[in-house]
């Protein structure tokens, strides 16, 4: 299974994502520079966390328009899995691959802590390693994680089972406690929490491992 991590200027969880992917797949992930017009052939693409372009203008806005995104969009359209974590989620919404936007946290402060996440839908290629309704503990670290979409969109996301994760104790004001969502085909996931930071017992937990394992399983 081949994986790729996109590196934008200011990405800073690219290495963390690559380490987690290698742990799950046994093979190093390919690091892809944002300026590349083409994406190498990969089964799974990850847009990592960080502060691409310093979060200036709007977080994710400038990255969403970088050359590599054409390839990323084509990858998504071909039905192959694409995950955006934190800043990666922001890029996905800015690129129009996922609905809604991530606004400034309701209390305006950056928030870093481990939060409870409820698996809202475990019948996805990203979450089927978890039990439905299971609660896992995963760190968040963001300034703009306050998910917003109009009611109609939110109803549709919920109705179609496209809310993958919900906060058990909302850290940022997100509408309907949403922490992660899927596109309508179910192959693109965006989430604010960082599963790649909890794949190692020494770091206080392995609750993120099943996400990567689910993908390996699905792509086998």
């Amino acid at each position: 299974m081949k994986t790729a991590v996109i590196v934008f200027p200011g990405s800073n969880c690219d290495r963390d994502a690559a380490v987690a992917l290698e742990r799950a797949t046994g093979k190093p992930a390919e690091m892809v520079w944002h300026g590349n017009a083409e994406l190498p052939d990969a089964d799974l693409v990850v847009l990592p966390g960080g502060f691409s372009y310093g979060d200036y203008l709007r977080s994710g806005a400038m990255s969403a328009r970088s050359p590599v995104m054409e390839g990323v969009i084509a990858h998504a359209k071909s039905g192959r899995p694409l995950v955006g974590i934190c800043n990666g989620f922001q890029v996905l919404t800015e690129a129009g691959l996922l609905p809604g936007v991530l606004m400034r946290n309701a209390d305006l402060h950056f928030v870093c802590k481990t939060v409870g996440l409820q698996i809202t839908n475990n019948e996805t290629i990203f979450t089927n390693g978890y039990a439905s309704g299971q609660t896992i503990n995963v760190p968040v670290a963001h300034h703009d994680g306050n998910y917003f979409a109009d009611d109609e969109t939110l109803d549709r996301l919920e109705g179609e089972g496209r809310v993958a994760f919900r906060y058990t104790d909302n850290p940022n004001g997100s509408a309907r406690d949403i922490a992660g969502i899927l596109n309508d085909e179910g192959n693109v996931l965006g989430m604010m929490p960082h599963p790649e930071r909890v794949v190692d017992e020494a770091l206080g937990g392995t609750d993120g491992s099943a996400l990567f394992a689910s993908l390996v399983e699905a792509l086998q």
Partner: protein
Amino acid sequence: MSKLTQMDTAEITPEMVKEHGLSPEEYDVIVQRLNRAPNYTELGIFSVMWSEHCSYKSSRFHLAKLPTTGPQVIQGPGENAGIIDIGDGDAAVFKMESHNHPSYIEPYQGAATGVGGIMRDVFTMGARPVANMNALRFGEPDHPKTQHLVGGVVAGIGGYGNCMGVPTVGGETNFHAGYNGNILVNAMTVGLVRTDKIFLSAPSGVGNPVVYVGSKTGRDGIHGATMASAEFDDDSDEKRPTVQVGDPFTEKLLLEACLELMQEDAIDAIQDMGAAGLTSSSIEMADKGGLGITMNLDVVPQREQNMTAYEMMLSESQERMLMVLKPGREAEAKAIFDKWGLDFAVIGETTDTGRLILDHNGETVCDIPIRPLADDAPKYQRPWVPTPDAAVLSADQVPAPIDIGEALKKIIASPDIASRRWIYEQYDYTVMADTVQIPGGDAGVVRVHGTNKALAISTDVTPRYCQAGPLEGGRQAVAEVYRNITAVGAKPLAITDCLNFGNPERPEIMGQFVGCLEGIGEACRILDTPVISGNVSLYNETNGQAIPPTPAIGGVGLLKDASKMTTKHFKAEGDAILVIGGGVTGHLGQSIYLREMHGREEGAPPPVDLEMELKAGNFVRGLITEARVNAVHDISDGGLLVAVSEMALGTALGADITVDDANTPLHALAFGEDQARYVVTLAPGDVTSVTKAAEAAGLTVSATGTVCGSSLTINGCAPISIDELTELNEDWLPTFMGAE
């Protein structure tokens, strides 16, 4: 032509000399060394190089007395940061630096650029920053500015460090009226480098290209005093010095670009542009290499129009670096900086003249020998008077509380003891996925990536002790760092310092400085933690009111096996509790108890027995290495009862402890701040053997107990609910900041 440009050729007046912070005597020395009067640009260059900040003119003499060597030291003071050997070809690079004044003027940007500056110092040496720390002192909570300053400083530290993707894993925060007009923001960065990939600032070759990389130069932070009193013309608004604004995004690119270039063998020397930017970086490099340097200022990347030579040389624009490349490597280096979207300009070359020569607009605007600028900078042995000894306060001079539980509740919710969660949750402390101990414990701990070893980091100083007794205070600061690093199981290896004091021209302030430094030096010698880098910040005064002496110490230790690491939290019902270390007198002088319960800041600080610290530390670290203890916490502010409470906070577990000492009042045993002590928990079956071993090592077991229930009991007093203590401890800071 603007007036400032005209000033380049204008004659230097005594007023100009004064505005540049130079004494008439210092000016005479300049004239002597040059054999002529300097021009305005040259005067500016001398003034920044001879400023306290760059020349350490008041402190150098005393700093020389600190121990700086040891088998673990790869690089001591004198480079951008110090380096220690952590085995297997790995090295840790670290330093701490102050950004006090800018943070008071503009807390967000001041703190942010402080963090940016210290990270540059570390990655200049080839190291990837892996952990940030911050030591903060604010005025009293009730002071009208405090809340705003706390909010801005914390947001600024987070804003910069988070964007860089470097975890902030700890720090310290105090509130005291002594900082009302002069807060302290000290930032520390720790980085990792392979020992064969270290970069230094001394160029070795003549005719090598001098390269400027990073952000463009603007009129940021130019010598406030000078500019404020310069005459302004019509575009004066444009020429006014401006607050430095940090651009962490550019710094992240600069970090990656520098590290990428460092993989190649293209760099001869490298130096970040910190205070006094282009001036100090070029001069320090040339001086270290025993070379000269010429630069053409026309090609310096500029953000603003019509900048003068003076302005370019004195600008403190952030996110810039100066490098000397090996000959012929320009294109290769440029390609990397282009890729990262950063400015790259060859602005000069190294020479064998020993002079700094600057050209601008077709004229030579500066031509001065480098030696006097750097090495021959003035040095002063300022007069000093020792701080008078404070009388030791005995326990019976301090009233007991009516209820020990009520006293504990008040102390646990007091500004200096309350939880710092509100602060550290604004810092990304898990990025890089190697943080094995998050803020809130005794030390922050980060794994060396890809290995099973880890670095433990702590910053400490107790300014009220330093104020009452600088010597003891200096010793105690190092001892507390040593204990905090030991408490997580690591061996302390070396320290950095950030020496914050008032005006050194006042003998009593100089006395504090000398006393603290003596204590620090002695402690470093005995505890074998040499000083490998540091920073001095003097003149921290407002209206003649100096800050309390605050020599912040940052220490780094090595945990060979990260899986052995301990944390302070109680682990299991039924575990035994032992307090191990030095003897107990119930020392309440300068204690938190005395201040919070009685509003008194009196007495001598607790004496520090450094040999005892060493023994206790080695013993406790041994227990941790042998996996014989389940939780460890050192005793510091607030004494035994606060330490035991902190081990229980947030867990569902309580404790029942007994201090067997009929001669000392209970409140002194509970809240006394006697040093060299640790609280450990362990299996009940191990109590006898550990107690014996401790006594055999010359240590005292001064209290015993059990982890049990959900409340805290000492010597049979009424139980105090842990839930209630947790709530009080957690609530103070968010409530204080709530109306922000």
